[in-house]
């Protein structure tokens, strides 16, 4: 599966030429829209998230990033999510790898405060944060070397790169990801400036909506569910941010219609009506939605389009999915309608 060692290191191709790696490609393609799921397993599905839990969550993501990307401050931005996507793609990471990495970072002592083993250790005088061993040993060791209480980090070596190869490769990957992101930023600016010249707000709104519908359909197909499952999601705030506004709007309209129907009913209780219209997600996902909606319309459209292009190699205007990045780059005239 891993073909890195065979590849020339310096060509910069390490990141791009993934055509032989179809299997892992598919996984990492899906990984993009599932990225949001990896965190929530820990926290956001629990309604009563403590403040510091959320912080942990952020730390974890930062940890993950700093592991592969020393010296890069992760921005909590759309571009950042894309960076992660690009990185795991470039490193040939599978879904299983990512699940492994996530699990490896969570301390059991914090994760399982009710753990019976931990309780027994406390009975023996253990204090969380301290290390095991005789008091004398501890002080000796502290003199020698600072001992970490952390379990030894597991790193899975893929391929037969010699000592020093993996870190060189990592630098290479980081560089190529930087280049890709730079390129994307350029195209974003280009896109934004061109689009605001020629599009009215109204037209933009309708294009955002159709692009969102396509994204939702593609995600549904990838997950093997009907699009309705997403439209009718129990928590509309839990769906992908790319089309969260669409789903929320859909559900709101539905409720309004229901409300209207009920108003005609004489036994209608007005208290319920307020409750019906009160749609709220947890803080985090709601804030995310607000941020999305505060963006310029053109920026919103850009986000949806780039999602389609990077995850599904899909172009709105061509109306179909290309085979891969190169295919898309070479054969699609551009991101804008007028390019076509």
């Amino acid at each position, binding site marked *: 599966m891993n073909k890195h060692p065979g590849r020339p290191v310096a060509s910069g191709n390490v990141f791009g030429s993934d055509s032989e790696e179809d299997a892992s490609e598919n996984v990492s393609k899906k990984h993009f829209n599932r990225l949001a799921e990896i965190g929530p397993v820990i926290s956001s599905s629990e309604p009563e998230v403590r403040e510091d839990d959320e912080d942990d969550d952020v730390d974890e993501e930062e940890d993950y990033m700093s592991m592969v990307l020393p010296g890069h401050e992760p921005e909590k931005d759309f571009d950042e999510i894309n960076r992660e996507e690009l990185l795991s793609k470039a490193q040939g990471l599978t879904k299983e790898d990512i699940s492994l990495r996530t699990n*490896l970072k969570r301390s059991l002592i914090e994760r399982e405060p009710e753990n*019976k083993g931990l309780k027994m250790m406390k009975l023996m005088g253990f204090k969380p944060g301290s290390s095991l061993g005789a008091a004398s040993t501890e002080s*000796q060791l502290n003199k020698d070397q600072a001992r970490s209480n952390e379990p030894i980090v597991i790193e899975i070596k893929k391929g037969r790169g010699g000592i020093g190869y993996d870190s060189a490769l990592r630098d290479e990957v980081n560089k190529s990801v930087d280049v890709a992101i730079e390129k994307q930023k350029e195209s974003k600016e280009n896109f934004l400036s061109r689009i605001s010249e020629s599009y009215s707000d109204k037209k933009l709104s309708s294009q955002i909506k159709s692009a969102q519908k396509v994204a939702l359909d593609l995600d549904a197909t990838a997950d093997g569910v009907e699009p309705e499952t997403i439209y009718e999601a129990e928590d509309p705030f839990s769906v992908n941010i790319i089309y969260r506004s669409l789903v929320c709007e859909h559900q709101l309209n539905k409720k309004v219609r229901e409300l209207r129907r009920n108003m005609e009913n004489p036994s209608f209780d007005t208290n319920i009506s307020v409750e019906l219209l009160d749609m709220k997600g947890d803080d985090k996902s709601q804030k995310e939605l607000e941020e999305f909606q505060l963006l310029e319309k053109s920026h919103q459209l850009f986000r949806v389009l780039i999602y389609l292009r990077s995850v599904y190699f899909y172009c709105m205007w061509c109306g179909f999915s290309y085979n891969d990045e190169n295919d898309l780059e070479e054969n699609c005239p551009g991101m804008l309608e007028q390019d076509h």
Partner: protein
Amino acid sequence: MSEEPVTKKLKADDGASKSNPYLAHLENEKDSTVSNENATGISGIIRHESTAAQANKAEDGPLNPFNGKSLSQKYFDILKVRRNLPVHLQRDEFLKMFQSTQIMVFVGETGSGKTTQIPQFVAYDDLPHIQGKQIACTQPRRVAAMSVAKRVADEMDVKLGEEVGYSIRFEDKTSSNTFLKYMTDGMLLREAMTDPLLQRYSCIILDEAHERTLSTDILMGLIKQVASRRPDLKIIVMSATLDAEKFQSYFNDAPLLAVPGRTHPVEIYYTPEYQRDYLEAAIRTVLQIHASEAEGDILLFLTGEEEIEDACRKISLEADELIRESNCGPLSVYPLYGSLPPSQQQKIFDPAPAPFTPGGAPGRKVVVGTNIAETSLTIDGIVYVVDPGFSKQKVYNPRIRVESLLVAPISKASAQQRAGRAGRTRPGKCFRLYTEDAFKKELNEQSYPEILRSNLANTVLELKKLGIDDLVHFDFMDPPAPETMMRALEELNFLGCIDDDGELTPLGRMASEFPLDPMLAVMLIKSPEFYCSNEILSITALLSVPNVFVRPNNARKAADEMKGVFSHPDGDHLTLLNVYHAFKSPEAQLNPSQWCYDHFLSLRSLQSADNVRFQLKRIMERNDLSLVSTPFEDKNYYNNIRKSLLSGYFMQVAKRMSSRKGYITVKDNQEVLIHPSTVIAQDSDWVLYNEFVLTTKNYIRTVTAIKPEWLLELAPAYYDIEAFKKGNVDVRMGLEAAKAKADRLKKSDSKRSKASYK
């Protein structure tokens, strides 16, 4: 040589007693020393006051000082060789330190003769046979314990198993006459469970301590405690590497004696750039050495069996070409790894091939080995070492609960050790397949001791059995991560081996008597409840030996087809059982070797499984565990076995994911795939697994299909549905469905039983 100068002796004693708190006992002890000229023939030797001269004289015969028999010519031949070993020069120095202190650290490089000679030096001074005591010398590896014991029995001209013996898991070759016992460190630890003060020993030698195996680490902690309660016990910690300060300071600044190895300078070469494929680079380097370097054999370090066999093939092929094209000498290539049959392992000691024509280019031998060749084995004639810088290392992480062998960079200390192998015969060269910069930046100083890389469930059970209640403050040389111990305690609690207060339960006490992993031990102990202890006993034995299936590279398809003959649709454990039953059939027993060859099975593994089964059976009988079987015709024959497997392995269960390919482990939510070697036929929703292997993919290996109802029935505490509320949806829903089904069945059962009472 006569007596040692008295002044010097006194000085040594004085110095030592000031610095060493363990000397308080010496005064009393002198009264109890025995001079036993007539009975033993060790003339004039006073216990703990002997000199090298006295010992040499006793060794010179003509009668064997330990059994009074006359010494053979072979004995004297070996004696000559022994007296040339580096340790021999420092025998007096050793004796003085041994006599003056309770604990000492001894450093001698591989080949110095420490493993064979030091225990004999001790025997001639400690006189254990007169005391009715024994000397123990621990080894990390079974093979080493056996082969060294054999060698030392020869050196002392006694029969192996009499005065000199060995004791390893599933094999005890000692008798009431044995006073020098080589044993695995794990065996000494097991003995400590029934004999906490190790009363039968007067001296304990912990050999190869630098390897820092789990058992050696625990033993060191234990012996440190025992030492203060048994001032008469002598302890020698032996290490092959020079990082002895850590041992010294751990044992309260014990004195150190170092015997320089007989080494020559080794030139070290680094590559100018990092390598994209270390295997390819290694092969290239070996061939280049053969083509251009002076006479001398080559040692190449690689990570595992498959890689080594692959490299051997490629080197042979390319060497043939090289020989055709240029006038190189012949090249013979030998693999070396743990699971290699001993007869083949022996081949590495064959001399290099002779030149094609007298006076032509010299022949050369290449040994391609794992890190066994790093410290524990000395191969004469090695002048060139090729070191890619990797080895396979066990790792454990409590957060994902996986213990696996992974390829990882070696430490700087290991790299030094490897380089040293080139300088045993004459000045040598070491080719490191990485840059000097990478050596400095990417390699750790020291390798992690095993205790930091292991699941500690078994160790915690052992410590509990040893009577150590406060595990948190046990004097570990390198304390494990708290989370590792937390997991171990939790696992033992779920298995029922310890209660909520951390106290050993009767089940746990019994489990600790089996030299098995707690999960296996509990499975075996509970198997009579499922009417299949005979079968579980066989499966346990098969899981305790190397893989029984052989899959040669040139006959993979045929091997897989043959495996298909034994395969059971419910999974690998039952397939193993089929293999064992077939192996025990009269047809197979007619000519087991041919039968195994025909069926692509390892005779060695099956025979050792047979032996393990016999040993475990004895322990079961001792514990009044009955050996029973469900009649084969009974429709529950296989179900009972599967349930019984689950009673031990309920913590290693995975559920198939509904939306994707693959499985997810319960509780840890780790996404995994089933290993391609499995025979499991139907895509079962729930499986238990023996092993979680991390390779380029995450696999579970040796799997058996189970029913989710059984989880709730057999391990209700672990499968408390409440605890899964936050976990994976697939797992939660699966369990809830199983619960609903079980409840329905219960209801209809009770209705039916009510009906039948009417």
